[in-house]
């Protein structure tokens, strides 16, 4: 089924002047795989909402122009009708499943179409085999990792067998291995003649499968290339547009091992954790983090990285482990920063953990993170990147020496990633020791000094960059 977007403008308010989309024209042929790329806020997600009908049927705003699926105008359809033709996968794996168990979730779309239960069961079994998720059948979704949840989401849209697949930044929370699995799923859809639209700024995994990369800027379609054309222009060109590189930089390839002795380290001993004695989740006899440097922690989803971070920060583990962490002074910047902003103004946020409270020192910290002009604003009114910096500011003000970051760049475009990287470097220059859990090789190459790689609860590799 082909998609035609004709002269579409859209704004979230009633005023068409500050439109999110301005006169967008896009024709996507049946069986094509198209990537919508662009910086955050460029309007690429809004275009994807035109295709799955959320605009104009769910989101309120003012729209001009037409969107046709085949020969039908989406404005004349209902969301339920559109869902027969278009399947959507969203960015946040936590909030896109409706059921609590995986089997019901995969069947959910088919149930809504009123299909025969016997046929649904057959389809569920078939989809589970196709996507290779036999091990996830019959599980509680709340106990799955982000990557596993995203696979279930793909399986659920696959079960209804739509003609068009729309994916909105599906890789934001995934590790490299799971991203490769996602690429396989997209290839499978394409080989069946399905139309696939992916909104994304990580391009490396789509290099072999995408037919076109459409670059969106300021609500307009700026230009488009085939992956080969974009690659010819070189990585600097892509970076200048705020896109992540087409070729994944290999952390190991850039590795330049130096046999330097590290002068001072923060050392943790006996970092072990298990739910049952026989199956340790984490088993690390010694962890040394060089003082005043940035250490990256790599590893697949489920390797024990988050558990390690929680142990280091004293949020988990035995009483003595917790006390040791508190004495050392560690601070965790969570992946979802919404969880750690409590007060009514940015300044209060920084003062909250400060002892003794010193307003001028707090303002100085805010200044160093480019937040001074927001001091009186409500933290929840800020953008994602600003919220993250507020959380960092409160970590700095609480005078902790070791700051742990959980996935600071998930879902960020190239420019935002560079901004985070600059912030991390500035913190290290202030003498803080940083420990960064990440899947992002570009961030690691940009700012980290040391790398620790984990697998199955153990450290398997350690090196300096």
């Amino acid at each position: 089924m082909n998609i035609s977007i004709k002269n579409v403008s859209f704004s979230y308010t009633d005023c068409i002047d500050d439109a999110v989309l301005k006169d967008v024209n896009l024709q996507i042929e049946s069986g094509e795989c198209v990537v919508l790329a662009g910086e955050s806020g460029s309007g690429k997600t809004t275009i994807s909402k035109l295709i799955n009908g959320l605009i104009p049927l769910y989101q309120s705003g003012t729209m001009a122009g037409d969107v046709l699926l085949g020969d039908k105008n989406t404005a004349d359809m209902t969301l339920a009708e559109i869902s027969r033709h278009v399947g959507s996968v969203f960015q946040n794996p936590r909030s896109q499943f409706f059921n609590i168990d995986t089997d019901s979730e995969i069947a959910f779309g088919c149930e809504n179409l009123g299909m025969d239960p016997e046929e649904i069961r057959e389809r569920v079994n078939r989809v589970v085999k196709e996507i290779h998720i036999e091990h996830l059948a019959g599980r509680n979704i709340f106990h799955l990792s982000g990557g596993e949840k995203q696979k279930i989401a793909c399986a659920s849209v696959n079960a209804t067998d739509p003609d068009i697949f729309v994916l909105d930044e599906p890789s934001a929370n995934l590790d490299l291995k799971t991203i490769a699995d996602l690429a396989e799923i997209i290839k499978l859809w394409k080989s069946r003649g399905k139309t696939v639209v992916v909104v994304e700024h990580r391009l490396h995994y789509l290099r072999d499968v995408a037919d076109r990369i459409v670059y969106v800027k300021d609500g307009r379609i700026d230009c488009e290339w085939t992956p080969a054309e974009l690659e010819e222009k070189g990585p600097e060109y892509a970076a200048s547009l705020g896109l992540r590189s087409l070729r994944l930089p290999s952390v190991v390839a850039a590795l330049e091992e130096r046999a330097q002795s590290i002068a001072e380290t923060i050392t943790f001993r006996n970092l072990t954790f298990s739910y049952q004695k026989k199956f340790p989740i984490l088993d690390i006899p010694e962890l040394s983090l060089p003082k005043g440097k940035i250490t990256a922690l790599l590893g697949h989803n489920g390797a024990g990285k988050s558990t390690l971070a929680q142990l280091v920060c004293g949020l988990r583990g035995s009483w003595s482990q917790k006390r040791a962490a508190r004495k050392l002074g560690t601070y965790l910047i969570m992946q979802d920063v919404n969880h750690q902003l409590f007060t009514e103004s940015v300044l209060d946020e920084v003062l909250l953990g400060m002892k003794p409270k010193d307003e001028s020192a707090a303002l100085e910290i805010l200044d160093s993170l480019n937040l001074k002009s927001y001091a009186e604003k409500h933290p929840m009114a800020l953008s994602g990147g600003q919220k993250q910096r507020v959380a960092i500011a409160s970590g700095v003000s609480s005078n902790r020496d070791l700051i742990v970051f959980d996935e600071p760049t998930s879902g960020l475009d190239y420019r935002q990633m560079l901004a985070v990287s600059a912030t991390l470097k500035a913190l290290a220059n202030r003498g803080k020791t940083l420990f960064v859990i990440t899947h992002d090789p570009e961030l690691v190459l940009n700012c980290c000094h040391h790398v620790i790689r984990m697998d199955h609860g153990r450290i398997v590799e350690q090196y300096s960059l």
Partner: protein
Amino acid sequence: MKLDPRTKLFLAIVANSVILSAPPVYSVLMFAVPAILLLFEKKWKFVLAFFSLYLAAVLGFEHLKTMDVGRVGTLAVSTMMIVSRMMPITIVLYYVMQTTKANEFMAGMSRMHVPNKVTIPLTVMIRFFPTVFDESRAIGNAMKMRGIRLFSLQTLKNPFAILEYRLIPLLVSLTKIGDELSVAASTRGLAPETRRTCIVPVGFHAQDLIVFVYCLIVAACFVIASRAKQSIFDIISAIFC
């Protein structure tokens, strides 16, 4: 042992009304049903923990209620009283939440001709409980990180601050998740006008009948006993002797 979602709904309504208005004997008779059913689901630990706490609260309350225990003691006694009343309700709801799948619940409701406009929000609510706990735990961790503790001089001075710290991030993230959830559900064809099918078979079996009859008998005993101002033991002995 699987019950029909309609039976569970009936159980929840009858059990809660009896537990809230009747003496402890009836509570025990009522929550024995979900407790036994939870044992079938292999939730040994939960049932054991529940019974220990309930027993402690009831015995403590019965033992202390007539004594003069002072101001702090009164607080303890009333806490015990609240616990002994609320625990049975918790176990009934826990059982229903734990064992009812969202699609099963929707199928059951549509069999009772409840319109989708009522069912869908109710289902979202069931789906939401685990999310609330997840989010709340993450926020608790963040508060610990900042050194805000539930019991400290600082919070005693300003008890509302702690409520604010806990609730504001929770509300913000729940609103966001709720919106994303309804977007995801509507792009997958969930709408008031659709007629759904369900892969989980829904229907009444022998066990449903047993639960129905049992609930009705206990409720009837309570109503008769309270009319006649007698205890349940008198009624049982009147029937059998």
